[in-house]
């Protein structure tokens, strides 16, 4: 069928990237933590598919593995884990942010532009997938922004993870992923990171009676 139809592959890739961006915007917009977690797994799902497509289109074998790992970890394991923590931590499931939603959305729009600005010199139309670098950068920056904007420990973790997604997307779009060993290492690290985040959040919610990092004002000067 469309085995060697490059165009379609490219279009698919772009489509998924766009979808990820949209999801990111949704995350910035919404207010409930469980939803945010679900959105994250959705975004990761798109990412996995995108990776799969890239692997398929460019016959990059090791990207399949990356895609599979993404599917396994980011779509299934981590969201479950995060939900567990959320239940453990007796805390109303509101994300509290410094800026209100419209402002955040506006800023994220700006960040998307920055992403394009950064990515511009690297966009080479004749090569496949490069168009997504802009999206990747934008995702990264927006994830960063989420971390700044949110107060809850968990929502900061989510921000970080989306930023990671952005990075992964960038990796795929620039160079069809990193060398395999590096990929594995990265995944390993992310996994450990999330577990440690879990442990910390758990302890925090034990010792502080809230997970609002904005209350962390003991150490100053």
């Amino acid at each position, binding site marked *: 069928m469309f085995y060697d139809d490059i165009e379609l592959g490219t279009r698919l890739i772009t489509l998924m990237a766009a979808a990820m961006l949209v999801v990111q915007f949704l995350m910035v917009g919404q207010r409930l933590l469980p939803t945010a977690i679900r959105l994250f797994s959705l975004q990761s799902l798109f990412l996995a598919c995108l990776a799969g497509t890239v692997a398929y289109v460019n016959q990059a074998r090791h990207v399949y593995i990356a895609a599979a790992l993404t599917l396994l970890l980011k779509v299934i394991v981590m969201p479950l884990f995060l939900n567990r923590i959320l239940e453990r931590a007796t805390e109303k499931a509101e994300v509290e942010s410094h800026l209100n939603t419209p402002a955040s959305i506006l800023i994220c729009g700006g960040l998307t532009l920055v992403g394009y600005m950064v990515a511009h010199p690297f966009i080479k139309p004749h090569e496949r997938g490069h168009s997504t670098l802009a999206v990747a950068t934008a995702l990264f920056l927006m994830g*960063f922004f989420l971390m*700044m*904007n949110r*107060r809850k420990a968990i929502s900061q973790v989510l921000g970080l993870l989306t930023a990671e997604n952005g990075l992964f997307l960038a990796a795929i779009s620039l160079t069809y992923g990193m060398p395999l060993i590096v990929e594995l290492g990265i995944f390993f690290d992310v996994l450990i990171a999330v577990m440690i985040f879990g442990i910390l959040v758990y302890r925090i919610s034990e010792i502080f009676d809230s997970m609002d*990092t*904005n209350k*962390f*004002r003991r150490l*100053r000067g």
Partner: protein
Amino acid sequence: MNSEAIVVFSFRVCLSAYLAGFASSIVFVRRERVANFFGFSCAGIGGLAGCAASLCALAYGATPTLAVWPFKMPLFTFTIHLDALACFFILVISLLTIAISIYSQGYVTQYYGIKNVSVLAAFFNLLVFCNTLVFCADNAAFFLITWEMMALVAYLLVSFEHEESRTRQAGFLFFAMSHIGTGCLILGFLLLFRATGNFDFLAFHFIGASLSPMERNAAFLLFLIGFGVKAGIIPLHIWLPEAHPVAPSNVSALMSGVLIKSGVYGLVRVLWDFMGTPPVWWGITILLVGSVSALLGVLYALVEHNLKRLLAFHSIENIGIILMGLGASLMFSSFHHPVLAALALMAGLYHTINHACFKALLFLGAGAVLRATKTKSMEELGGLIKKMPWTAFFFLLGSVAISGLPPLNGFVSEWLTYQALLQGFSTTERLVRLIFPIAGALLALTGALAAACFVKAVGISFLAMPRSPEAESAEEAPSSMLLGMLVLALACVMLGLFPSTFLPLLDPICQGLLGQAISARVIGGNGWMLTALGLEQGSISTLGMVSLFLALLPLPWVSWLLFSRKAPHSIGETWDCGLDRLTPQMEYTATAYSKPLRMIFRALYRPRRQVEADFEVSRYFTKSIRFETHIEPTFEKLIYEPLHRAILRVSQRLRWIQAGSLNTYLLYIFITLLLLLLWEKIR
């Protein structure tokens, strides 16, 4: 065995003796008496060896170079070079070390059981060691190391009695200030380093010529500040009157005698040896700084009633006098009058060694008083000339010397300075020549005020009636202390009466720095006289004065024999205005003594006074009255305190950067990232 070998050998002995003193004191850290004996004896031996080495080097013109540490670092070599200048200053420090280490044997016994004497002895040796190295280090980096080590050890010694908060503050102030100075020195040397590419003093010789005028002047200012802090020139002096008094007196003697001279050494080394022919304004600057320091130093000393603080302020004054000589010398060399330059330099250096002797002597005397009466405040002293006659005599001698009165050494060097200044008048036709006689007049004023100040110091603390039970029960210092003072007293007399034997030692210095050996022209009347480069320009003979004095002594004596011997001679009360008897309360106090000058120089002192009196019947019958007067330390008030406060306030304000909010922290990173991306785009 040639002279060079002798010099090297005895110098090695000197250094190792100091180290041995340090080590032995550390070893016997629990056995104070042993540590005291070994530590200070080693210091004394080291001093002797140092004297031998430097005298030999100066006399026979040996200038050996030797390495004190076998290894090298990048940019560093640990070599020392005993040229004439170095040897002169080593002579000064060694001389003082001998006297002070004899003195200390007795002095430190007061600390037994209270403070750890071993530590004192150890650091004393270390201080002398570092200071000696400062004078002969042959590599800028090595110089800086020894320079800062010296400051460090001095800091530890100043903080020796650190239980009083005042002492701690003084120590901090001293070390912080001197570190600022060191910062300037580092920058200055780095400016020179740019031209040479290494730090060797040999390479720096006359390097100034190859710098751009801009850099050259910058270097000059940096060095002036850097060395000026250590020398205690006004307005960089604030640490000096704090640090010197709180240190143990033997240390104060060493600090006031030598440590601050390392600033002078540095200036001479850099400006004469490295900088080449200076622009005129350098000399003017130093001359002015010198005059101001001299005058203000003595003025502040006048209103000071803490004996050691008073002496500290006089150190500032004398540094000023030294700098007057140096400044004049610089001006002469920029007017291309090497001979006069040599004369002025000689005057400055001679005053350096003189001041070292009498200032150390005075500090030792003050130490003896402090040890006997446990108080530094002159208002509580008095009548000590009967309780401790020898100490009083030595102190009096030192006072005569420091007031620049004939026939002692202070007079000789001040006379040389006068001559240099007077001769300088004819070196140029420009208006700037007026500066010489004016400076001379200021020097005269300084001298006279110093005399007034020391009449006060001696008169109030040693003469008349004791003002406190402590002074009442004072006892003469032990013989070792007296011996130490005697050495310095003899030095003062010798330097005063036989300058013609000492001045030739300065020839190699002037020869090396200015290419002029002038002692032959300064010494006249086959050794009896000192001339201003020739009899017709003027001459003095301190020796002549003394002998004349002795020759004339019979006259009044004869008249005594002839007429008044048979008359009745009686001891009576001082006239007490008809009261039953004179009490110490009726004596003139130090405060009262300096009152006229305090009033006259009101503008400088801004004195505040408060009188609390309560009365019985009417305001004519005072039951008790309390009078208290303060003068305002102008420089601290106007410069340092505002600066200090401003810095702290700004720092406090800046603490909000670290306000504890994680989101803000992330924001910093984020903004930095965006800015950098932007920068990268527009770049």
